[in-house]
C-alpha cells in the first residue's frame, strides 16, 4: 500500500523538475515541455488526493483533471504557433537569440 505522503513527494519532485527545466533549458520546445510537466504535477496531485479516503474516489477531481488536460492542450497549441512564427523570424529555436527586447 502506497501512502498519500509518497504521492505528495512524487508530485513535489515533478514540480521541481518542471521548474528546473524552465530555468536551465534554452530550447523553446523544451520550455513548453517544462510548462506541461508543471501542469501534470498539479494534475497528479488532484488524482492522488481524490483517493486519499479508502474505498472512495471523488469524481470532482477526475472532472477537474479532464478539463485541465484540455486547457493544457490549448496552451500548448498557442505556444507551438508562436514558436513556429519565432522560428520564421529568427531561424533558430534558441531563446538566447530572443534578447532584442531590453530595458
Amino acid at each position, binding site marked *: 500500500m502506497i501512502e498519500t505522503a509518497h504521492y505528495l513527494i512524487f*508530485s513535489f519532485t515533478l*514540480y521541481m523538475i*518542471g521548474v528546473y527545466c*524552465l530555468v536551465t533549458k534554452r530550447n*523553446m520546445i523544451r*520550455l*513548453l515541455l*517544462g*510548462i506541461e510537466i*508543471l*501542469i501534470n*504535477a*498539479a*494534475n497528479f*496531485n*488532484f488524482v492522488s*488526493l481524490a483517493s*486519499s479516503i479508502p474505498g472512495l474516489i*471523488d469524481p*470532482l*477531481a477526475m*472532472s*477537474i483533471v479532464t*478539463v*485541465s488536460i484540455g*486547457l493544457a492542450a*490549448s*496552451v500548448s497549441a*498557442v*505556444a507551438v*504557433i*508562436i*514558436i513556429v*512564427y*519565432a522560428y520564421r*523570424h*529568427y531561424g533558430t529555436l534558441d*531563446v538566447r537569440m*530572443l534578447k*532584442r*527586447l531590453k*530595458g
Partner: protein
Amino acid sequence: MFSPPIDTLLIFALTTPVIGWITERVKKVQLCGAYSTLGLVISLWYIYELFGAISTGGSQTYTSFFSSQLRIDMLGVFMATIFVLIGIFASVYSLRYLERDTGIPLFYSLLLLMISGMVGTVFAGDFFTFFVFWEMMCISSYTLVAFRKQRWEPIEAAFKYLIMSSAGSATLLFGMSILYGMCGTLNFQGLALALSNVGSSVWLYVSAIFILIGLGVKSAIVPLHTWLPDAHSAAPSPISAMLSGVVVETGIYAICRVGFTILAGIEVQWLGVLAILSLVTMFVGNLTPLLQTDLKRLLAYSSIGHIGYMLAGLATGTVLGLTGTLMHIFNHGIMKGAAFLCAGMILYRLETREMKEMAGIGRKMPVTAAIFALSLFALTGMPPLNGFISELTIIMATVEANMAWLGIAVIVNSVISAAYYLRTIKALLQPITQKKVEEAKEGPLVMLIPLLIMAGLIIVLGIFPDILINFARSAAIALLGGG
C-alpha cells in the same frame, strides 16, 4: 447558461467570425467591429440589470449542467462593469486603428473571448470555474499580443508572456490541488467554512505560497513582473489599453477574493508580505521608467507602479483600504486606457514610439495631446482629477490602519512619477524637428470619440466621486462582510 452577461459575450464571440466572413465579402469589415461593440453594449446592459437585482436581493447564484457554479455579488458586478466599459472603448477605437491589418474578425472574436473570460473570473463561485475562465482570458491575451505576427517584436514578447504566465497558472493549479486535498471541495464558501475549522496548518501556508505566486505573475508583482513591459508595449494599442487597464487588475481581484475568503485564517501573515511587496513594486515601477525613451514602455512600467498603490490599499485589510483599491482599479483602467489609446493615436499617425521622434506632436494633434496630458496628470494624482481621489483614499486607509510608512511611500512615488509624466508632456510640446511630425494631422473622429468620453469620465469622476465611492464601498463590504 453562465448568467446573461457572459452568455451574450460568448454568443457574440462565436458569431463574430461568421459575420466577419460576410462583411469581408462585401468589403465592409468595420461592420464586424460594430457588431462586436453591440455585443459589449448589450452585455453592459445585462450587468446593469444584475446590479439592480443584487442591490435589492443579495448575491445571485447560477448553477448550470456543467456543475460549474457562479456566485455573483457586488464585487463581481463592480469589476465586470470596468471590464466591459474599457472593452467598449477599445472595440470602438479598433474600428479605425486596425484598418491596415488582416484577420480583423478574429481580433474581435478574441477580444470578446478575453472579456468574457475576465467577467467569468469575477463571477465564479468555485475555484475551478475561476481557473477555467482565467485560462480562457490568458490564452486569448497571448494570441492578441502576438496579433501582428509579421513583426518580430510581438512574437518575442508573446512567447515570454506565454511561458511566464502559464508557469504561473500551473503554480496556481498546484496550490489549488493542495487546498482540494485539505478540504475535499473547491467551492469558495465551502473552502472558507472548512478552513475556519482547520486553523493555520503547514499545508495552508504551502498552498498560500503557491497560489500567491501564481496570481502574482499575472498581476505583475515585482519579482515576477518582467513580462509586463514587453507584452504591453508590443501589443496593438487597444490591447495594451485592455491588458494594462483591466487584465492585470484581474490578478488583483483574484488576490482579494482568494485572500479574504480562503486565507482568512492567516490574514496577518499574507497581508504583511503584500505590504512589503507593494513597497518594492511601487519603487521599481516608478524608478525604471525615468530612463525610458519608448512611450509605450514608459506607460507599461508605470502600470507596475500603480499595481503597487493598489497592493498598498489591499495590504491594510480594512474596508476603507479595499474601497481605495477598487476605486483605483476603476480609475486606473480609465486613465491608463486613455493614455495608451493616445499613444496609439500618435503611433497610428507617426509609426514611431520613440519620444525624440515625436517632439512637438502636440502642435499638430491638439485634441489627442490635450487628452494625453489630462490622463497623465490624472495618473500623477493631480487634485481635481479621478486619480487623486483614489490615491487619497488609499493614503487615508494606510494611516487609519497604522501603516503610515506605506502611505508616505505612495506620496513619494507620486512625486517620482510626476518627473517622467511631465517629461512626456514636455516632449509633446517641444519645437518640431522631424519632417514626419510637420505633416501629421489630427486623428480620425472614430478614434477620438472613446478618448473624449474617457477624458470626460476622468474629470467627472474627479469632481463628483460620490457614486464611485459608494459603488466601491458596497463592493468592499460584500467581500469583507459588514464593517
